[in-house]
């Protein structure tokens, strides 16, 4: 069919017609039909892309990482900065990351990529932003990662996170995490990390345009996969089933793959109106350690796509060597739309269900 559209373009046929009356109602119906068709199609085709409900994906900005010392005289390694918190997930990044040390200046803003690391699960890039300009509270590069080895992930299977800390009046440290979810996980990646805007995610609308681009190569760290799918590790509640399907251990972190199945109408106790369901997780071990994590939410669940599976992924620091089991407690959030822009609000108080317990060997 694509060819046909191209062909039509070449035809250049004149149509001499008088436009007819199309009522607003008719336009609205047409538009709704198009968007519905588009969403459906993309759901099948695009793994992570369009179909999510607004909060399901996107930027996670600096939550759960308390501020560290206000002024640091010298910055050694950016990962260090994010380790001030005892439960930080970046403990071992320092030991395994490659020093990059490239600085680019554009429009009065200096960006230095200090370190980066790739462990087949995530590409994590640490950088520092310096400027005399006011960049707001949590500025980060509206960045994009491309690598010729990552053709598929480029388009569909990734989630991005930016974790930002202000380190002095006009200096900020940012951890950019690019989660590779589906697609190839090559030995080596030739990365182009670039952005054309620095944007404040801290609530102001401050942004500075420019052009920052970095090229570097990273080799994959060793990793080990444990298939949990056949072991039937799961939790169930009314209208909900969550399975643990895979666990990956790399020198710097552990990643847990889950699969959620939800009957949204049943869980939301709502027959007609739009509802969305999302889980927040708490990760602990049998020794009482709590783990911070970076999460990709997967597709999420909403009444637009009934009974679809969503496959979220949690990346935590390496599990305590003494621990024998990991406990993942889901808390259920039910959302309704409160504005035309898709802003969501909890319908009722989030509640926890029985945890998933993964034995560690």
């Amino acid at each position: 069919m694509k060819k046909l559209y191209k062909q039509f373009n070449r035809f250049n046929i004149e149509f001499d017609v008088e436009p007819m009356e199309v009522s607003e109602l008719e336009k609205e119906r047409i538009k709704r039909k198009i968007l519905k068709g588009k969403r459906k199609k993309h759901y099948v085709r695009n793994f992570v892309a369009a179909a999510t409900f607004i909060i399901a994906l996107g930027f996670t900005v600096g939550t759960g990482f308390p501020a560290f010392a206000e002024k640091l005289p010298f910055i050694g390694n950016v990962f260090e900065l994010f380790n001030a918190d005892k439960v930080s997930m970046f403990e071992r990044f320092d030991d395994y990351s490659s020093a990059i040390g490239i600085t680019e200046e554009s429009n009065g803003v200096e960006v230095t990529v200090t370190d980066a690391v790739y462990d087949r699960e995530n590409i994590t890039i640490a950088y520092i932003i310096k400027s005399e300009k006011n960049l707001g509270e949590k500025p980060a590069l509206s960045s994009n990662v491309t690598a010729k080895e990552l053709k598929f992930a480029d388009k569909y299977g990734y989630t991005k996170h930016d974790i930002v800390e202000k380190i002095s009046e006009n200096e900020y440290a940012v951890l950019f995490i690019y989660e590779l979810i589906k697609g190839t996980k090559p030995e080596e990646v030739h990365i182009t990390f670039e952005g054309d805007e620095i944007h404040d995610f801290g609530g102001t609308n401050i942004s500075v345009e420019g052009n920052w681009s970095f090229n570097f190569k990273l080799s994959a760290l060793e990793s080990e996969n444990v298939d949990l799918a056949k072991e039937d590790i799961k939790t169930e509640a009314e209208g909900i089933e969550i399975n643990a399907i895979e666990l990956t251990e790399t020198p710097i972190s552990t990643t847990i793959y889950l699969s959620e199945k939800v009957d949204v109408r049943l869980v939301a106790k709502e027959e007609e109106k739009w509802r969305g369901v999302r889980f927040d997780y708490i990760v602990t071990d049998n020794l009482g350690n709590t783990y911070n994590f970076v999460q990709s939410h997967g597709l999420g669940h909403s009444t637009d796509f009934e009974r679809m599976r969503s496959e979220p992924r949690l990346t935590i620091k390496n599990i305590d060597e003494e621990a024998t089991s990991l406990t993942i407690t889901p808390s259920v959030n039910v959302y309704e739309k409160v504005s035309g822009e898709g802003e969501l609000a909890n319908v009722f108080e989030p509640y926890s269900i029985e945890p998933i317990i993964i034995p560690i060997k």
Partner: protein
Amino acid sequence: MIITSENFIKHLKKGREEALDYILEKYAGTVKAVIHNTLKDYNDSQIIEESISDTFFGAYENAKQFKGNEEDFKKWICTIAKFKAIDKQRKLYKMPVAHEVEDYIDTVKSAEDEYLIKTSSEELQEMMCKLEQIDRDIFTMKYFLNMKNEEIAAQLGLTKVSIDNRLYRGKKRLQKIYLGGILT
């Protein structure tokens, strides 16, 4: 972001909903008129509305295939509208496609013609891959857009006779390929 006549194509290619709003606002009436001209005999507003949706859906999904300016866009979306209307007709096939009622060499529809009219757009398209580009264009105009041979001739800067001949030969070729395929 404000969508204007200068930037709507760019935003449409990016799949922006605002750009869809813009083209709906601007072209829905024209698209409706093109579709209405083809499907008015059905006297069914729902069929027309479905075809309008199909048209805008096609344009929205395939915006990347479009090249040109605002004026070209109008022609492009009208061509899609015409195609969708005829495609609808094929699917409904309640009545013969009203095509070629004037002095064309085949005043009685040939078997191949009947076949080409009844075949689905998808099958036809697949078959047409075997033809050269110029014949593919002629076949597309003829069977997907229901254009008269004269109109096709004017469009391509060829004579009507050469269009007649090319259609005739093209049909024979397709017949050979497809019948040959079945027999061997």
